[in-house]
């Protein structure tokens, strides 16, 4: 179990990565105990498969022209499922955009996610997800929000952590550093999670930084930090769970560098063959998080791989129905453009809205 002693053993400056399983799913730690019940673990694996299936379906909807751009999660799911198991209802989730499994665990519906990527803000309503922030496109800018939320939780005396996500490229942004610093100075209970998937679109990590790793960036801010194997579900789960307790108990932030690999494209508009080799892709495929967790479960006789096909089939049915629900969503109205800008529509915006409505009524359409 990851604890304070382990944290001390994995100093970022030593560039050691916390791992529980090897690439084949074999536990490499001595005296290690499974951190959750068999049943919960099987659930986690199902969640992982669900995320992976959703991703495949989403890419195919996009290819069919039924959805605009979409950022695939393939290869990074262990981070998301681990986060999903740790983040509680009262906690805040401050996402970037590539954390699908954690979103679903927080209560965001697939229908909403599809709706968002089909191009409708209604997909960011998150009606069933408490304290879930929307996609943040400007890289790393969301991290300072998490620091502010952390301040507010202290101020309001609430026992709630804030989980903020960013990619490896985001650690070059000023807001990454400002967020770590503000959170540290303000004793804010924030868990920063860097999904180091090796590329910022096409730019490899070695072009981003001379630091030996990304966790080390937390050290100067007095933010306890650790490098974790992001493709190792157990390692991720243990560190996430530790981090949540740590930030709430110690009243200080924590930084996790989750080392992983984006096996898919940056988004459906991206072509990774332009900037990486198939050898590299194969090397990381061998570390795939689903494979490792599956091997562990099969070894423990908790999982029958032959049952997977049937399960995935049922997932696909569910995913299709969520997508269809997104397609059935009411048509985008003129009001939707204007009415959410302010609590009360200012006269000037009312005037502009009427102008558009009058025009549309004269041409009898939406042009």
């Amino acid at each position, binding site marked *: 179990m990851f604890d304070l002693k382990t944290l001390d053993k994995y100093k970022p400056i030593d560039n050691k990565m916390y791992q529980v399983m090897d690439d084949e799913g074999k536990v490499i730690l001595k005296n290690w105990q499974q951190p959750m019940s068999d049943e919960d673990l099987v659930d986690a694996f199902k969640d992982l498969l669900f995320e992976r299936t959703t991703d495949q379906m989403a890419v195919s909807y996009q290819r069919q022209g039924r959805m605009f751009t979409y950022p695939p999660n393939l290869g990074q799911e262990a981070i998301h499922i681990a986060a999903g198991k740790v983040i509680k209802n009262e906690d*805040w989730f401050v996402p970037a955009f590539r954390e699908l499994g954690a979103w679903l665990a927080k209560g965001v519906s697939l229908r909403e996610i599809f709706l968002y990527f089909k191009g409708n*803000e*209604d997909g*960011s*309503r*998150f009606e069933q997800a408490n304290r879930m*922030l*929307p996609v*943040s*496109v*400007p890289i790393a*800018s*969301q*991290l*300072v*929000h*998490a*620091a*502010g*939320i*952390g*301040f*507010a*939780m202290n*101020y*309001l005396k609430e026992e709630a952590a*804030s989980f903020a996500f960013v990619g490896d490229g985001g650690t070059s942004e*000023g*807001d990454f550093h*400002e*967020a770590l*610093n*503000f959170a540290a*100075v*303000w004793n804010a209970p924030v868990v920063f999670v860097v999904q180091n998937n090796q590329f910022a679109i096409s730019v490899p990590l070695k072009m981003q930084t001379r630091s030996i790793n990304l966790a080390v960036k937390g050290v100067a801010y007095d933010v306890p930090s650790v490098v974790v194997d992001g493709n190792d579900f157990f390692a991720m789960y243990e560190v996430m769970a530790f981090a949540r307790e740590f930030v709430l108990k110690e009243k200080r932030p924590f930084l996790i560098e989750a080392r992983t690999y984006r096996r898919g494209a940056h988004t459906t508009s991206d072509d990774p063959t332009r900037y990486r080799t198939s050898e590299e892709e194969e090397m990381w495929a061998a570390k795939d998080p689903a494979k490792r967790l599956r091997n562990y479960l099969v070894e423990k006789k908790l999982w029958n791989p032959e049952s997977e096909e049937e399960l995935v089939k049922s997932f696909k049915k569910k995913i299709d129905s969520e997508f269809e629900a997104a397609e059935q969503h009411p048509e985008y109205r003129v009001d939707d453009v204007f009415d*959410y*800008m*302010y*609590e009360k529509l*200012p*006269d*000037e*915006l009312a*005037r502009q809205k009427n102008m558009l409505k009058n025009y549309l009524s004269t041409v009898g359409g939406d042009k």
Partner: protein
Amino acid sequence: MKVMNLVQAITDGLDLMLTEDKNVIVYGEDVGVEGGVFRVTEGLQLKHGADRVFDSPLAESGIAGTALGMAISGLKPVIEMQFDGFVYPAMNQILSHISRFRNRTRGKFTVPMVIRIPYGGGINALEHHSESPEAYFGHTPGLKVVIPSTPYDAKGMLIAAIEDPDPVIFLEPKRIYRAIKQEVPEEKYSIPIGKAKVLNPGEQITVIAYGAMIREVQKAMVMAKEKGYSVELIDLRSIWPIDRDTIRESVRKTGRVLVVTEAAQSFGPAAEIISIVNEEAFLNLEAPPTRLTGFDTVIPLPLGEKYYMISPQRIYGEIERLIKY
């Protein structure tokens, strides 16, 4: 009633809101022990505690972005940008998030926060201390942008800004921080955001200004009065939402309009106001709608500022030219 200058009126408004609402907090650079470089937050930390009025790390993007985080989780942050030219590092937070969070989340998350910024030139300051950035904010959907020109308005508009459910940029004309004194009620009152004020009714020309330019126009009006000209002066007070009705009614009556802003000319508030005049009062016009603004240059350092700043004489000259047009 107490006689206050603009600084004191803002301090009074902050004090009142800090007292009334425990979720109001005030932070920024040097706003705590120091009381702000202009002393706007003087005494507030002592009275309300260092957990509510405090110095933050020196990082404007962080100041603005953390305020968004606080605002969506139930607090009402009133943050200070120390000077106008220091807000630029925070622009990404203001333009990309603070102004958009309500719309992005279809109203699930709202951002009730105020960003106070001392702004404008004429104080013999260094570079980045004399800017008029209101057009950037007025051009940004999702913000409200207000500028008081009197102590009375400053307190009432600040209270309205803090109580507003949406983010408000509160620009303080630092040049007249201590130049005007006025009786200000000690109790709470608020002045609706989005309403201009006719400071002086007149018949022959409408002059529209705001902030520190109001006082310069008033000096020009003394000269105009001596010549027997009747000038209507409008204090715009709200850059956005802009008060189309007040502009329309006035220019329809006078048939002439002069807009005076310290901000650079191109794509600025004066261009916007004149567009409104053209849309609303075209057939009433007796002279070309005219603007007297800062130049499309960097505002010069103090020794060159006299060429940039708009004098009452220049304003008077334009008033006369347009009336005689």
